[in-house]
């Protein structure tokens, strides 16, 4: 039957990699797009799928848009399960490459 697990594509891995980075706990969609160089047309469907699967969660930045003088940003952060799944996916890709360690 239907599975809620997102398909692991190169772009999904890029996004997960950026969110796993220790430099920042959370990032806005624009920041993720800049870091991964993924266009907005591809970025948001992936983020939504990751969020539906529970791998990523998002929340609005604190503050009123009127006080901030701009629209609020929505920040994304990776969840515990998302982190585990991402590391597993990276490991699965890295394992076959170890055979070519001599390269």
């Amino acid at each position, binding site marked *: 039957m239907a599975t809620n697990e997102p398909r692991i594509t190169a772009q999904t891995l890029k996004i997960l990699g950026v969110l796993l980075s220790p430099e920042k706990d959370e990032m806005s969609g624009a920041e993720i797009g800049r870091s991964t160089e993924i266009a*907005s*047309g591809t970025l*948001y469907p992936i983020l939504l799928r990751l969020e539906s699967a529970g791998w990523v969660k998002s929340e609005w930045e604190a503050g009123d848009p009127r006080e901030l003088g701009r629209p609020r940003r929505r920040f994304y952060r990776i969840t515990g399960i998302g982190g585990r799944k991402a590391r597993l996916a990276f490991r699965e890709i890295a394992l076959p490459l170890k055979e070519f360690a001599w390269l």
Partner: protein
Amino acid sequence: MALITGLWVFVVGVLTAVLAITVAEEIGAWSPWVVRSLIKFAVARLPQSQRERFEEEWQSHAAEVPGKFGKLFVCMGFVIAAHNMALIDRRSQVVEGLSRNLAQLDESHATLAMVVDLIRNEPTLATREDLSSLVNQLSSLLNESRQLRDRLATRLSSASAIPQTLVANLLYATYAAAIRRGGDEMSKHAAETNSLGAQIVTLVKEHTKRLSRVRSA
């Protein structure tokens, strides 16, 4: 002659530069309106529950992008994203709805199959010709219904395995139509089995009443 040609080239050059600056200024002036309109257009493609969130989120994203052309490019991306997100949502609604229907059908099949067994195993009921004929019809309908249900479940499973890319989601629409037709067929079958089931229940109730009157007499 060369001087006149040179003068013309200079004048055309200046006019072109002035036109380019004017066009750029116009684009610059219209850009915020175009950005807002593109975002509204994109958000209108989304399911109702997502519109408010993504309108604000995408306004904020566009605000973070430097340059007017950068903002326009990003907003065109939002339109593509919204189309894909709407397809994903429609797809998961079809899958969830049908999964729920299949679960309800399984429950109804189990109950009706139990009724058939009970009647066949009850000596006073099993001998009644009118009841026996209805029970046989119901049993045959249940078998057909189970086969239909299994075919639909297989179709649903194959459809769910289709990858979630924009092109695949567009092609999914064909599969979704086939699944919906299967669902309609199942509903017709379910209506027939329920109707037969109701007739059987009425007959059993009458029989039980008559039996209890005879016993009390």
